[in-house]
């Protein structure tokens, strides 16, 4: 096992990794920007090194600074968390060149999966169901028109290098396609320095379903079941659950087999997530793969009992999957996660600042992952996630009731948070029914506007 791990991240995920390391007897090195000097990840690590000024690009995204910190601290591995450098294949390569074990998949696979059109082709070859769409990049408008005709409208134009909704356009007819093609390509060029687009069938009311996987470095792959992540606003997930009520045990088992085969083909290792869209008929289609631990990994941990971060560390240290998870875990009960963000619960504007009161809920079946504390400051420089509130119950109903109880006991003052928004969602009938899709938040906010 590693002797000393550097955590190249901040906030709750940095503390999550530090905690896992501590429980395994591994020393930890935190890195931090000047804005995070008083953060808990700095306080609870064994060592902490300031690597730059507040802006991420000068600190947490500064590859030489992170590598240098690992070198002077004598770390033998780096955990990238999520976001930041976690899906930067170059960083993983520099780690390898610097004799630091990168806790994640090999850079070649990260690169493969980072290009969405390539990822799509790769998964198609491995017999993973994919959305009908173009075979790779669209040469030009003409090609786009041809593909759209064969797929059937509506279709979705997507940036090859995309993310966060940029470079994306829904196209409902032949007439509007050319203009939308230009817009999307232009936007993608600006955002990612790459204007290449591909096309997929557009599903009007899709669910967002994703599968958690673990794979060791010897070709053994395991699916740990799915998460339901359809509660999103502007492609930002707000609430995640495991399991999904829509996935039957049979479907789960079949997907497990498909995933196993495909990731073995690709040569994937460590933790990863395969994202799918589910259409109105319950069929699911691959959309992309995230080659890192995810924010919402906790709900899978709660229902399977598998500690995913510890599994990441053990896989990276060369252990076999069979020794880490001896048998396919059953999903027990139901878990839901609310992302508590420092933002206005109605206007969705960011709300950095000093926290004055911070009472975290506890008790049976309640888990809180946070690096915030009373008197702590939420800096303006980073994402707004301040805590994850995870509730586990024997079924979805109990988990929802537990969440309502826990939300009512989660008191944050000094800044605005999304707690009141979550309280409204958990009182919503459509949400409670479990019959929703990724358009839920639009309808929900519309209902609120009408009701108000």
């Amino acid at each position, binding site marked *: 096992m590693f002797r000393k791990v550097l955590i190249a991240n901040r906030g709750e995920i940095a503390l999550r990794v530090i905690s896992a390391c501590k429980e395994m007897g591994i020393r930890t090195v935190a890195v931090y920007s000047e804005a995070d000097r008083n953060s808990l990840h700095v306080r609870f690590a064994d060592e902490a090194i300031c690597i730059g000024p507040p802006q991420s690009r000068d600190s947490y995204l500064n590859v030489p600074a992170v590598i240098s910190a690992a*070198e002077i601290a004598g770390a033998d591995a780096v955990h990238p968390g999520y976001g930041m450098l976690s899906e930067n294949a170059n960083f993983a390569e520099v780690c390898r060149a610097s004799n630091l074990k990168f806790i994640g998949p090999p850079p070649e696979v990260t690169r493969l999966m980072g290009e969405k059109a390539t990822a799509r082709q790769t998964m198609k070859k491995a017999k993973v169901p994919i959305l009908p769409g173009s075979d790779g990049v669209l040469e030009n408008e003409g090609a786009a028109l041809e593909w759209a005709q064969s797929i059937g409208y509506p279709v979705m134009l997507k940036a090859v290098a995309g993310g966060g909704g940029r470079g994306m356009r829904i196209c409902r007819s032949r007439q509007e396609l050319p203009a939308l093609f230009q817009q999307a390509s232009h936007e993608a060029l600006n955002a990612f320095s790459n204007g290449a687009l591909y096309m997929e069938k557009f599903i009007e009311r899709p669910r967002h379903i994703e599968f958690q996987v673990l794979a060791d470095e010897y070709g053994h792959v395991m699916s740990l079941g799915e998460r339901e992540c359809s509660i999103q606003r502007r492609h930002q997930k707000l609430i995640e659950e495991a399991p999904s009520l829509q996935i039957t045990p049979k479907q789960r088992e079949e997907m497990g087999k498909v995933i196993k085969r495909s990731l073995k083909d690709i040569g994937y290792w460590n933790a990863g997530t395969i994202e799918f869209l589910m259409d109105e008929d319950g069929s699911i289609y691959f959309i992309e793969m995230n080659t890192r631990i995810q924010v919402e990994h906790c709900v899978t941990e709660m229902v399977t009992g598998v500690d995913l971060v510890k599994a990441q560390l053990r896989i990276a240290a060369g252990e076999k999957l069979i020794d880490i998870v001896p048998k396919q875990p059953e999903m027990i009960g139901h878990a839901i996660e609310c992302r508590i963000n420092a933002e206005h619960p109605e206007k969705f504007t960011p709300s950095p600042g000093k926290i004055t009161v911070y009472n975290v809920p506890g008790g049976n079946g309640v888990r809180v992952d946070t690096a915030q504390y009373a008197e702590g400051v939420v800096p303006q420089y980073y994402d707004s996630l301040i805590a994850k509130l995870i509730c586990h119950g024997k079924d979805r109903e109990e988990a929802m009731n537990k969440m309502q109880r826990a939300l009512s006991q989660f008191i944050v003052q000094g800044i605005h948070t999304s707690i009141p928004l979550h309280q409204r969602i958990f009182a919503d009938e459509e949400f409670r029914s479990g019959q929703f899709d990724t358009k839920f938040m639009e309808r929900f906010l519309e209902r609120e506007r009408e009701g108000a």
Partner: protein
Amino acid sequence: MARMEGKDSQELKELVEFLKANGIAEFEMERPDLKVSLRFAGEAPVAAATGIDAGQMAALLVAAQGGGGGVAAPAAAPVSLAAAAAPEAPAVEVDPYAGAHIVKSPIVGTFYDTPAPDAEPYVKVGDMVSVGKVLCIVEAMKLMNEIESDAAGQIVHVFVKRGQPVEYGQALFAVK
């Protein structure tokens, strides 16, 4: 835990003189390591009431100083590498180089005061330096980064030793 040492009381005296000279009646300051709160006698007790937007003020302040980069950039004092900021255990230290300019490390790496293992140091305490004079090397990822002085004056102290790891913003030299 922390004690009021001779140096601290010196610092406090200077602070009080300064406040008196500027006609300030009440003063409170809090830093991660230090909290000062005082009120001069002969004043009616007043409870703080502010209608001033602190954020706006801080921005103004930076502007007024014609000032540097980061808004919330702390005072980059010499920090030991492994020292995690411990909110509850503030140690009061006083800086003996209070009047000096501090040259800080712009990168994380390993400090060398010589261009080569058996060469002479770039500078020694007592040397006069000008802006742009190379003071040391900080090695990061096998690259030797020459660190130049950003002030002119005399080297009065070297904070780190040859081969010592340094973090971003760590004090390297005091120049007076």
